């Protein structure tokens, strides 16, 4: 009897293992199927949205009035946006779909820009209509290719679950697989669509910003000296070049140094190659219990900027969290706040030390502007507000708009119910340009 015991136990163990394996396999197959079906659903929705986008766009073009056109352009925007959202949830490698993603984003963005134009009663120009027509052609092409692809999905030629596994690994192999897909064709075709320049965030010209920063080119040694001088209070030891910053709006030198003697925190600094200015610096030291009042911290930040030669900067808002406070400064030219020329200063609330600065916005855009006088009075602008709001203050501000534009506007801080809002009324046309909700939180005032 005894000699059957061991084989018996082993046999049972084997059966149990086999059972367990089958169960696991079924489970994993179930998950795989579930995932594949989720992806298929997204794929179907993607097709639907692309189809709708191209149809809506054609309806916009055929519309008789700018009112109808606006409506269909907003529909196009929504469909393009949803299509893009669905596409980015599918397990395609970024390199194989980036042009298509970009196309969908720009399609939506361009539609918005055109809808905003026609809502203001501006009729679109010949070339703008041309662009819409061209976009429609590409959207139509995309829809047709996706419909073809759908056939393969239906016939089981494409399994999204498998794709997910390959996606992260080898692009070559993914590409091999993608050949069955029409995505490769689509990407190739999408290379050709024209660069779009318009008033929107995804417009082509936004990328190529020329910085206003001027001065002489400096070497890395000079950059180290410049950083040492600018950040004297940090008492940086052993400041050295780590690398160069290239291809960016403001090329520069990336430096590191140790604060104080011995084992202080490692402080990192970026100094611009032109002019030797601090682009940003960060001191990541631990912060102890807060002792400073917010007002005091703000004053310290103001003094720091003055000392660095940044005059005429006004604090526009502050935000404190985890023992540190970030103060935002904007440039002020003849009593007009210029929001684009932005510098941020970070103050440690335990001892009032400056532990960070960020000046890329200022260095990129700051220049002496030729600001026109407002054409409408403050009172007339106030008349454009909703009569249910309580105005707390108003001032002139130059605000950045999509497409790297700046417009002069009256900034009204108003109260509506329990909340504060900032409302911007165009000082030339009286149009309402933007509304921001100010969020009061324990840790400070956030403008959202």
């Amino acid at each position, binding site marked *: 009897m005894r000699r059957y015991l061991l084989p018996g136990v082993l046999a049972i163990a084997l059966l149990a293992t086999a059972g367990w394996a089958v169960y696991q396999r079924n489970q994993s197959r179930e998950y795989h199927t579930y995932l594949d079906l989720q992806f298929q659903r997204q794929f179907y929705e993607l097709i639907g949205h692309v189809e709708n986008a191209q149809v809506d766009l054609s309806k916009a073009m055929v519309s008789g009035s700018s009112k109808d056109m606006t409506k269909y352009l907003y529909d196009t*925007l*929504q469909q393009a*946006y949803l299509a*893009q959202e669905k596409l980015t*949830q599918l397990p*395609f490698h*970024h390199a194989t779909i*980036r042009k298509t*993603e970009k196309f969908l*984003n720009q399609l939506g*963005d361009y539609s918005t820009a055109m809808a905003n134009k026609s809502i203001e009663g501006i009729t679109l120009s010949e070339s703008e209509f041309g662009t819409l027509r061209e976009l429609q052609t590409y959207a139509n092409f995309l829809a047709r290719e996706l419909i073809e692809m759908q056939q393969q999905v239906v016939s089981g030629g494409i399994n999204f679950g498998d794709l*997910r596994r390959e996606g*992260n*690994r080898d*692009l070559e192999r993914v590409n091999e697989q993608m050949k069955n897909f029409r995505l490769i064709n689509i990407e190739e075709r999408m290379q050709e669509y024209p660069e779009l320049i318009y008033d929107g*965030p995804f417009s082509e010209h936004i*990328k190529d910003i020329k910085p206003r920063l001027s001065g002489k080119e400096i070497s890395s040694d000079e950059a180290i000296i410049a950083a040492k001088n600018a950040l004297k209070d940090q008492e940086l030891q052993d400041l050295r070049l780590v*690398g160069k*910053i*290239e291809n*960016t*709006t403001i090329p520069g030198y*990336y430096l*590191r140094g140790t604060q104080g003697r011995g084992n202080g925190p*490692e402080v*990192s600094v970026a100094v611009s190659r032109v002019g030797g200015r601090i682009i*940003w610096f*960060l001191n*990541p030291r631990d912060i102890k219990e807060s002792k400073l009042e917010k007002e005091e911290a703000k004053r310290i930040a103001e003094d720091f900027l003055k000392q660095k030669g940044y005059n005429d900067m006004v604090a526009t808002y502050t935000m404190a*969290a985890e023992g540190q406070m*970030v103060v935002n400064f904007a440039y002020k030219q003849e009593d007009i706040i210029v*929001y*684009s020329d*932005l510098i941020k200063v*970070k103050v440690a609330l335990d001892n009032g030390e400056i532990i*960070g600065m*960020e000046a*890329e*916005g200022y260095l990129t855009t700051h220049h002496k502007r030729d600001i026109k006088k407002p054409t409408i009075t403050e009172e007339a602008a106030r*008349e*454009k*507000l*909703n*009569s*249910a709001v309580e105005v707390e203050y108003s001032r002139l501000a130059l*605000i*950045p708009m*999509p497409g790297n534009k700046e417009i002069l506007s009256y900034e009204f801080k108003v109260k509506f*119910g*329990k*909340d504060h*809002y900032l409302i911007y009324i165009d000082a030339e046309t009286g149009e309402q340009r*933007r*509304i*921001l*909700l100010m969020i*009061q939180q324990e840790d400070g005032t*956030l*403008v*959202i």
Partner: protein
Amino acid sequence: MKKPICILLSMLLTVLFVFSLYIDGTQAQTLAWGSQGDEVRLMQTKLKDWGFYDGPISGTFGELTFEAVKKFQRHNGLTVDGVVGPQTRAALGLPSKSKPPADSVSRGVSRSDDVNLLARTIHAEAKGEPYEGMVAVGAVILNRVKHPAFPNTIAGVVYQPCAFEPVKNGAINQAPSDQAFKAARDALNGWDPTGGAIYFWNPATATSKWIWTRRITLTIGRHVFALE
């Protein structure tokens, strides 16, 4: 629909994600030529009673109403523009019906989720990197949100399939370190050590040749950062 995107451009203005919120003030809006409705009717009645208007009570703001409003404004020392804004509205005694939301709107807005998600991604992707390297990873994610070839929300970018290894293996669910949290805040506040990069990779483990064809901005710690 695209609101959260338009918003990103205002980062210069606000640094943070700016949600343009529109006050629903349909009933306290400015009345002008072309306006229609009960409010116009009420205004025409009032103007008629006071002898500024002798047209029909039509509910449509046309030429006669326009002239009447101008007359009324001149008489009351208001800006004579024929547009019924807050002051003219008050002088006419038209009720302001736009009621603010019952509760504070800002209580329904939280950035802590964004900070948390960003901090977890930074923690999973850049553990053991220099501090600015952590901020840089956060900045790349935010730069992707603003870039047309990527999804338009932080969650969309982080959870995009095949984008980040830690998302695939679940490391993203680990609790972030204090440093990662701080770095996430700095990135959200606008610190971008990468100069606008949308890619980063570790040369020791990256296998794709394609990635090396991008325009490199700088190297921080083990990561190379690059533009399109």
